[in-house]
Every structure is written in C-alpha cells, then in structure tokens.
C-alpha cells in the first residue's frame, strides 16, 4: 500500500484567490496535516460555507461540501455522524463562522463532535468587497462602516472555550510549519477542535497585515515555562491578550467523550453502511395496537 503524499491532495482546479492571500498557506497547511496524518483522499471530507476561504474544498482532492454562507458546521456534523470513519474538517471565514454562523459555532463547540474547524480570520469581508466583520476592531473604517465600527469585536478563542470546545488554538498563515502542526494536532484531538487562523486580506484589510501579525505573534508553547493547556480560566484570560504581543498556539485542550462516543448507534458500522433493505416495523406498529 502506497502512502498518500502531499501531491495526492492536489487537483487541477484553478484557484480564485488574490495573489498573496493567506488562504494559500492555510490550504497548504491542511494538505500537510492530512498527508502527514497518513490519510488518503477518500477518507477525508472538507466542509465549508461561502466566502473567499470557503472555496477551499475545490482546491483539495478529498470529499467536500461547499454549503451555504455560515452553514459549514451543520453539514460537517451530519457527515461525521453519517460516516464517523471519515476525517471531517470544516473551513470558513470570520464572517461565515463568527457572524452569520455564530449560533452553529457555539452549539458545535458544546456538542464536541470530532471535527476540526479552521477559521480563516482576516477581520474583513473579502468576497463581498470589503465590509466590516465580527472580528474587525472597534473603529475600523470599511465600506459598510465609513465612520468606524461602533461594536466591539467577538473573541472567538474565549467564546469557543466557554462554549465547551475541547481543543482551541490560534495560528498564523505566515507561519506555515506551526500552522500545519496545529491542524495536525487538532485532527488528532478527539472532539471539536477550533483553529482560528490570522489570515491577512491583502486586498481589503490594510491594518491587520502580514507585517502586523509578523511583528506581534508569539507562540504560547515556546514561551518560558510553556503554557498549561488544561487551565480553562487561564486560557480565557490569555485570549484577552491583544496589542503589542498576540499569542498563537494551543490555548486550551480537554479530554472528554465526543458526541459520537455517546451514540451506541455508531458503535460498530457507520450509518452509511448499515443495511436498510429489510427493516422490520412489526414492533413499531404493535405499539399502536
């Protein structure tokens, strides 16, 4: 048996991202993580919503579900439940996941289904040509907020931790090696893994640029004394850190049963391979006798 390589996940679809977009690095990091996890293309499904980054399922040779804006997680959940032997990843932007899809995001965190959710967070709406996003900082001037954003940004890291996500990390598309490793760890984690990725938009975000993050990001795991990923309250406090220095890496990780673990229906064969040709409904009818 020949192991799949990075090239096994390449296809010939023409990529429609701007030159220099952080999404290229995220795509490559995902391929790195999947290939180095020993998976073959047919064992993986990548789900997404709608947005620049959500076009990603077309650029990686796996099964895919490019759904509706903000709705990457419900199909990803259902695909995992339908065939829990698949490795399921979801991708999408900050508008997709933290704006229109915020409800699904929080509920998927507490559900702890074993999928890895990668958010391409560029703090701006790209595909709709530059409007404010839920992670835009207060005061940000965009086409939809020419006088500056009045609201505070959402904090996906602390939201995810308090909502019950069992693996919460942040990466930077400017650090491919670190990001690939984070995604691989997220995939290896049993449960819902969020990887929020700083992914500078080269076209519409002139503040949160590659250089902006390059100068500020430091790795939690590399700091002196390391970082205790089991400290939930500490992780939430750390998620508040923003300014001259911005932490990346794994904020929080918790071991707990996944949603699938608690379903005896999935203890043997995946739903998709359970026979349905001759289901006996005699007992069901007898209940109404």
């Amino acid at each position, binding site marked *: 048996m020949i192991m799949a390589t990075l090239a096994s996940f390449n296809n010939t679809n023409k990529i429609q991202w701007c030159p220099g977009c952080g999404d290229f690095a995220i795509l490559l990091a995902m391929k790195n993580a999947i290939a180095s996890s020993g998976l073959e293309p*047919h064992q993986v499904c990548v789900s997404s919503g709608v947005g620049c980054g959500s076009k990603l399922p077309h650029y990686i040779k796996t*099964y895919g579900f490019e759904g509706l804006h903000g709705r990457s997680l419900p199909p990803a959940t259902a695909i995992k*439940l339908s065939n829990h*032997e*698949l490795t399921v990843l979801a991708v999408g932007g900050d508008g997709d996941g933290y704006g229109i899809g915020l409800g*699904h995001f929080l509920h998927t965190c507490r559900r702890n289904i074993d999928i890895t959710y990668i958010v391409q967070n560029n703090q701006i709406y790209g595909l709709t040509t530059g409007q404010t996003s839920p992670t835009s900082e207060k005061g940000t001037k965009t086409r939809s907020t020419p006088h500056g954003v009045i609201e505070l940004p959402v904090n996906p890291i602390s939201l995810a931790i308090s909502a019950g996500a069992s693996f919460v990390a942040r990466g930077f598309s400017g650090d491919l090696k670190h990001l690939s490793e984070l995604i691989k760890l997220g995939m290896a984690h049993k449960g819902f893994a969020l990887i929020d990725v700083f992914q500078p938009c080269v076209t519409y975000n002139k503040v949160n640029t590659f250089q902006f993050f390059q100068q500020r990001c430091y790795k939690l795991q590399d700091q002196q004394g390391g970082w205790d990923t089991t400290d939930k309250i500490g992780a939430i406090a750390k998620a508040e850190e923003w300014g001259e220095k911005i932490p990346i890496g794994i904020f929080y990780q918790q071991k707990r049963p996944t949603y699938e673990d608690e*379903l005896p229906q999935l203890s043997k064969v995946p*739903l*998709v391979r359970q026979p349905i040709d001759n289901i006996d409904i005699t007992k069901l009818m007898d209940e*109404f006798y």
Partner: protein
Amino acid sequence: MGIMTLGNMFGKMLKMHGLNVVTVNDFPSLIRGGHNTNYIRGDSEPIYSAIKQIDVLVGLNKEAALRHYNELSKGGALIYDESKVKLAEGEIKRGDIRVFPIQLSAIALKVGGEIFFNTVALGAACALVSIEFAVIEDAMKQTWGRKGPEIVQKNINAAKEGYQAIKSVLKEQFKIKIAKVGPDNQILLTGNDAACIGAVKAGVKLVAEYPMSPSSSVLHFMAAHEFSHSIVVKHTEDEIAAMNMIAGAGAAGVRALTATSGGGFSLMAEALGLAGLSEIPCVIINVQRAGPSTGLPTYGEQADLKFALCASQGEFPRLVCAPGDVEEAFYETFKMFNLTDLVQTPGIVLLDKELSDGYQSTRKFDTSKLKVERGKLLSDAQLDGKADYKRFEITEDGISPRPLMGQKNGLFVATSYEHDETSFTTEEPKLRVGMIDKRWRKIKNIKSSDIVPKYYGDANPDLLIVGWGSTKSPILESLKFAKKAGMKVGYLHIVWMYPFASNEILAALKTAKKVVGIEMNSTGQLRDLVRERTGFYIPDSQMYLKYDARPFYPEDIFEFVKNQIERK
C-alpha cells in the same frame, strides 16, 4: 392524565371491540388550561372524520358542559363533575338529553388525588356505554404497563369508582351499548406516527429537527426509537441547522429526514435550494398549521402548498406530496424516500394539523410490496479503478450515478454554486443550461403510477369534488350522506403536487358535469395549481374555502354539495 391521554384510551377501547375509530384534538397553544376538547368517534361501519352530533359529553368543567351540550343527540348524555360544576336550574335548556352529575373530583381525591380526576371520568363514560370493566383493565395494562404496576392499579381503582358511580344511578339502559362487533385487528395512530413508521421502514438513518407544533411528535417518536432502529436523532439549535444537516447526511449517502411546520420551513428554504442544486436526496415533513407567521400554532390550515412548491430562490426540481390519511402518510412517506433517491433531489411531505395529531384506526400497513430503492448508487466495484469519476455527469436521463462519501474513487464536492460535471464552480452559459436541463430531466424518471390522483365515489358524477390533504376525511364522510340522498358525487383526491399528473387529473375533471373545490385556505391554492397545470378552472362560486382554522364537518360539505347540485 390529560384529557388527550384519556381520549386516546377511550378510542383504544372502542377499537378493542372491533370498531373503527377516529379522534380529533382541539386545544389552544397553552401547556395547561384553556378550553380543550378531545373527540372520539367509533362505528362498526367505515368512518373517516368527526361528525357534528355527539352521544356522550363528558364536561370536565362548566365551560365544557355549557359550550357543547347542544351538540348532543336526542337521548344523549351529559356527565359532569358535580363537586365543582354548579349548574343552576334551567341552565341546561334541553329536556331530551340525560344528565349525570357525578362527584368526579371528590372521588378522585378519595382514591389518591386530583391527578385521577380524568380517569374517574373515563370510568364513568365507559359504564354509561356498557363497556365491560375487564376491557378497561386490559387497555390500561397494555398502554400504561411501562409506568409500573402501581400506577396502573391506581388508575384502575380510579376508573372503577367512576364506573360504579354511573352504574349506581343508571336505572334505564343508555341508548348506546358498546359490544364486540369484530376482532381487534387494527392499529390506532396519528398521521405523524404513520409518517414516522414509513420513514423508519424506508431506512431513515439521520433525523435532525427543531421542535415546532404540530410536527414535534415526529422528533419525539424518532428519539424514542433511535436505539432500537439505529437512527441518529438530533434536536438541533434551529431549523437552519436541521435542514443543512439533512443535506450533509444526504450527500454523505444516508437517508435523512427533518420535520417542521411553516415557520421552521421558512428558515429551511435556503438549504432546500442547496439540496436541489447539489442533487441531494433528503426528506422534509412540513406539518401545516394556521399561519401566517406564528399564526394559530395548534390549529390547522392548508396554506403552505404554494410555498412548498416555490420555496427558495431560483429554479430546481423538488418533490411534493400531501398525504390525506394515516395510510397515505405511511405509504407516501416511504415512497418519498425512494423517489428522492431515484431523482436525487429533496422531497417535501406536506401534512396538516388535523391529520398530524388526529388518531385513525387502520389495518396494519402491508409491507410485502415495499422495496427500498436507492437509485443510482455506485458500488465499490463500479468505482474500482475509475480515475475520472464525475459526480454531476450530464446523462441522458439526467441522473448521475453517485457514491457514498468514503468510497474510493468517488470524490466530489456537494456545492451550493452552479458547477461543472466534476462539481467545480462554473459560470459558463452553455454548461449552466446543460445543468439546469439535466436537473429537470431527472423528474421524467418518475413513473406516472406513483403520482396519479385517487378517485372515490360515483364514477360518472354530477358533481366532482377536488381536494387534498386531511380534508379527504370529511369529504369521504360527506360522500356517505350524498349517496344516501341519491346524489352522484365523486371525489378527486390529489396527493402528488410535484410531479403533477396533469393528464390524468384533467381527464378525471372532464368526466364530471360540475367540479367544485374544497380547501382549508382562503385562496384555493390547489385550485390555482390545477389551473396552472391543466388549464381547468374552478371559479370562486364553486369553491368551499374554510379558513377559521377549524376542520371541515361532513355535514357542511354535504350542504355545500347539495347547493352546488341544485344551482347547476
């Protein structure tokens, strides 16, 4: 026990005597209180719906007694709670009915508490119509056995007290005596129950639903049976998630279901289009209730037909059927799963409130001819060595063979964008036309025998009624009156709304001297659909539209029919 539990118990006892049974629930959108009624009708002859006249009224409070005693037949009986209801002299203005004041509350308190109030009343009603006490014991043991012997025994004791209370005052035999007329070989269930069993038989593996009256019992039924039938049942965060989940599950290759009512279906509209565009089979049960908006949550209407046919932007094929009784709810739901798999598109089963929570007795469903047909699913062998598999291949019949996610060589992306044969996004005009045509072509694979309307009554009618959904029941009941009166009346019952059997329907419409329409909405939505698809028009003057959110009565339909025949 609430009055619905007890009403169903009474219905079950009638069924145990070999009678046919129908029940109707009428309750406001409140958890406790309000004016509730539970109507039960039994007969040795086939029956379809409620009729206006009742023979026994159990008025558990004063309002119920006073509001309904005029519906009693001559010689009918009113049982009421003498301990709580004080009826003044002359408050019941009828001399031709029998009145039984019974100390229902006092007896309940004596046997164990207020909670047994309804059971005492049930015992009293049974005694009045001469149901043997052993039958009551049997019924309670069968139905409540799971709750433990103590609870069953306490209810039996309570029923016994009520039973004896009537026996001790019933000097002259009541006009109705329930006797065994045949074997107890029917089941008694609601339209939602029947649709659920149809879905289970079809092999549904994932159910994602957000509770909404009157569809929630689908979620409850499925959740109760998720282990025994290996179904993953998810109460989702909202209907958007529910619909997107069944789209995901359908794309992965399992049979998936959601159920909702109009408000939830509105939230599902966008993902319905996603399933249509990306050719995903999945089934949505929409139990119609009185809208618009929150409307009258626990009351009925048939006003989502056009919405079901048109919901979501753009154009794509979706299957729509509207079962009219419990049998159709079972068989058509089963069929819907097969047809959605055959043509790889979403399907909507439109139920309505009257059908969804009214009980009907029926023979056990015949499963001998039911066959799960999954359409063009690729086997591992068919995919073996296939390097250039195209999920959306443009084929002659429009159907592109599909894999289960996880199979080797079957890679594809289910996508909400227009796409080429490989599933990659395209905006190329020729391909766009090719894909739209291909998707519509799929519908031609559905056999007309699967979608033809049903016909009841006189084969060459002077008057033909056109209707759909749960109105089938009062219409069939009204045909009995018409036949007795020597009138030649037929009923064309349309179940499949898309695809629509235009030729067969037009042919049937042409057999009648006059055609009328009966619908539970204010505009005649089926009438409009018939006109759109056949050119045949039923004018307003020939429509009986009811939109007070209450079901039709066969007596009123018969009056309408009589007037229409006389008017020519």
